[in-house]
């Protein structure tokens, strides 16, 4: 009997100890978060801010114990070199070696499109927050991909609405396009041309120019465009290519001669070209912090980002920060870090972001985020020009109709 009692006590201790161990291991299970961004290469200009914002968000969440207050986030950052093959290799490595449950990224839509099927195959969440080709979510749909950046269609439509208005006012009849020759450039240019045909049919496309991604010298393009004598030019050039293009075009007096409305001039360009950027340009951006300082989350983010990094956050920082918090809210709604549960929880859900309360559309997991158009002008509050007269084109007013997405997917099959 005594032996039996001892055994019961020992077993009880073992059981309690075991349960405690299991419980504590559950509590301590970190959430492995992968980041697949272009630390080097064409996209480096945008991605450094993105990485810094992710680190800031992770630091804030970890200060409260991590996701659900008990899953500290461990971040694994990889460099895609802005190359799709490298992005795929790194995404696979993040998934297989580092066991990440979610991959945040990516710069270059080609990279995003390339890693989407990898994440789907391994059932890992994928949140693109910089790259924005609509093909990331429109066709070959992956239920694991949630996009928190206004896509190329939404941005094109926002530009077109503004340009159509200007064309009517100014009597513009023709235009040319210049777009970087890769997934995003092609997708944005094609959407813009198609939508302009629809909203301003009197305006005709004269010629298209396709500088390769990574082009360093635009002189031949500039003179060739000027030779066309277009009423206006639509540009889809991003990151360091955009800096080179704008710097060289300005040296030609290009912007004084030809209207250049609605090209991508993100906060990065506003900051880096503060001294040289032509004032009065009508630009487009994806998530300007100054447009939402009335949202407490944005105000806090800007304050904390500035305190930590001693600079203002770019669009890319805002969107990567939102991506981390979108994931957090998905996990909270699911009550678990289990990827399948989080994926289902995010479907159609409304989340708080720096850009206000937004929702994921069910058909394509696209966040209902806005595009922003404004006039580049100096502002005494900032050491760089910002947008004045900002027009916010809401996501639901600019995204592709669901019927067209269904048709595009059917055609793809």
């Amino acid at each position, binding site marked *: 009997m005594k032996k039996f009692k001892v055994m019961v006590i020992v077993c009880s201790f073992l059981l309690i100890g075991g349960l405690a161990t299991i419980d504590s291991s559950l509590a301590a299970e970190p959430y492995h978060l992968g980041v697949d961004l272009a*630390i*080097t290469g064409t996209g480096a200009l945008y991605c450094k801010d993105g990485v810094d914002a992710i680190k800031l968000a992770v630091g804030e969440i970890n200060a409260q114990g991590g996701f659900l207050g008990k899953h500290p986030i461990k971040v694994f950052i990889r460099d895609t070199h802005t190359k799709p093959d490298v992005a795929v290799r790194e995404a696979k490595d993040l998934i297989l070696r580092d066991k990440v449950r979610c991959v945040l990224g990516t710069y270059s839509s080609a990279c995003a499109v390339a890693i989407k099927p990898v994440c789907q195959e391994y059932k890992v969440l994928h949140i693109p927050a910089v790259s924005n080709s609509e093909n990331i979510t429109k066709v070959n749909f992956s239920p694991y991909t949630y996009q928190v950046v206004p896509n190329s269609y939404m941005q094109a439509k926002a530009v077109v609405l503004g340009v159509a208005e200007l064309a009517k006012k100014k009597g513009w009849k023709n235009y040319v396009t210049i777009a970087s020759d890769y997934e995003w450039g092609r997708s944005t240019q094609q959407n813009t041309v198609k939508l302009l045909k629809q909203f301003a049919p009197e305006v005709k496309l004269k010629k298209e120019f396709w500088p390769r991604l*990574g082009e360093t010298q635009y002189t031949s393009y500039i003179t060739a465009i000027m030779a066309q004598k277009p009423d206006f030019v639509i540009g889809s050039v991003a990151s360091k290519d955009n800096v080179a293009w704008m710097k*060289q075009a300005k040296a*030609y007096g290009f912007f004084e001669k030809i209207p250049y409305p609605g090209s991508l001039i993100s906060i990065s360009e506003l900051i880096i070209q503060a001294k040289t950027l032509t004032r009065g340009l009508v630009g487009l951006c994806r998530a300007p912090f100054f447009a939402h300082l009335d949202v407490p989350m944005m105000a806090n983010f800007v304050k904390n980002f500035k305190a930590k990094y001693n600079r203002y956050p770019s669009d890319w920082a805002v969107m990567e920060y939102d991506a981390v918090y979108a994931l957090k809210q998905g996990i909270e709604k699911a009550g678990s870090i289990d990827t399948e549960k989080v994926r289902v929880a995010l479907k159609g859900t409304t989340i708080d972001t720096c850009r206000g309360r937004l929702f994921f559309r069910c058909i394509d997991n696209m966040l209902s985020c806005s595009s922003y158009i404004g006039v580049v002008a100096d502002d005494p509050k900032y050491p760089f020009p910002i947008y004045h007269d900002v027009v916010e084109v809401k996501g639901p007013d600019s995204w592709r109709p669901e019927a067209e997405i269904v048709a595009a997917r059917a055609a793809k099959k």
Partner: protein
Amino acid sequence: MDISLIFAQFLSGLSRGMMLFLIASGLSLIFGVMNILNFAHASFWLVGAYFCYTFWYLMQDFGFGMWVSIPLAALSLAAIGWFIEVVLIRRVYNRDLPEQLLLTYGLILVIGDLIKLTWGVEDKLITRPPLVARPVFFFGMPFDSYFIFVILVGFTVAVGLWWFLKKTRYGHIVRAAVFSREMVSALGIPIPRIYTGVFALGLFIAGLAGAVQAPVGSITLGMDMAVVVQAFCVVVIGGFGSLLGTFVGSIIVGEVYAFSILFWPQGALVLIFIVTAFILIVRPWGLFGTPMRA
């Protein structure tokens, strides 16, 4: 199509060609004299751009900052070239081509990481002085005044190299070394020192090219990979080791690119490769190369 446009496009092609010449001439010189195919040449070009940024950053309050930074960057690269030749390159002269390529390819990776450690991953931007920040007009067409400077530097380097190789004693020795190292050595001329000088000169030109490129756009990691292919096209068209060939090849590539943008924008890059492939088939040693080198 009016003459002013044709001229503007010609100038544009010429400036692109001169930029390529600055990159390719050092590459061609090193291969021509030392028989080393320096795969890392474009990486040194990029280092030149970063050096230029650093010097400019230190002197940005002065109007002459950019003008002084460019030669300083070139000289810095010459010093680096001297060091690398003595420490690394000298050891692979008698090795097979794959081993030389492996070494210079390894240098690309090392240089990439060193740039990351030294300058970080953020883009660097040089603000041009007012003199070269506005357009000049030819027949009523504007042209970026900075590229006039680029064209002048390109021609100066071409003439300077020609003068050096044809008119100076040291240049004669270098040219003689191309044909027979043994004979030059037998005359009591120290070949290693000649090679060190040539490698340093090649990197001086690479540094100059990088520094001249720096104020054109932003300076960022990966830029080197974008230009290296076109630089190789230039030396293939002109003929490896031929200065005149490199010069003509650069102008061909620049002008083909510029005018195809005008007439067939989608095919600009394709045309360059078609020209390169055609020359490789018809004249494998390039327009001004020698069959011996083919």
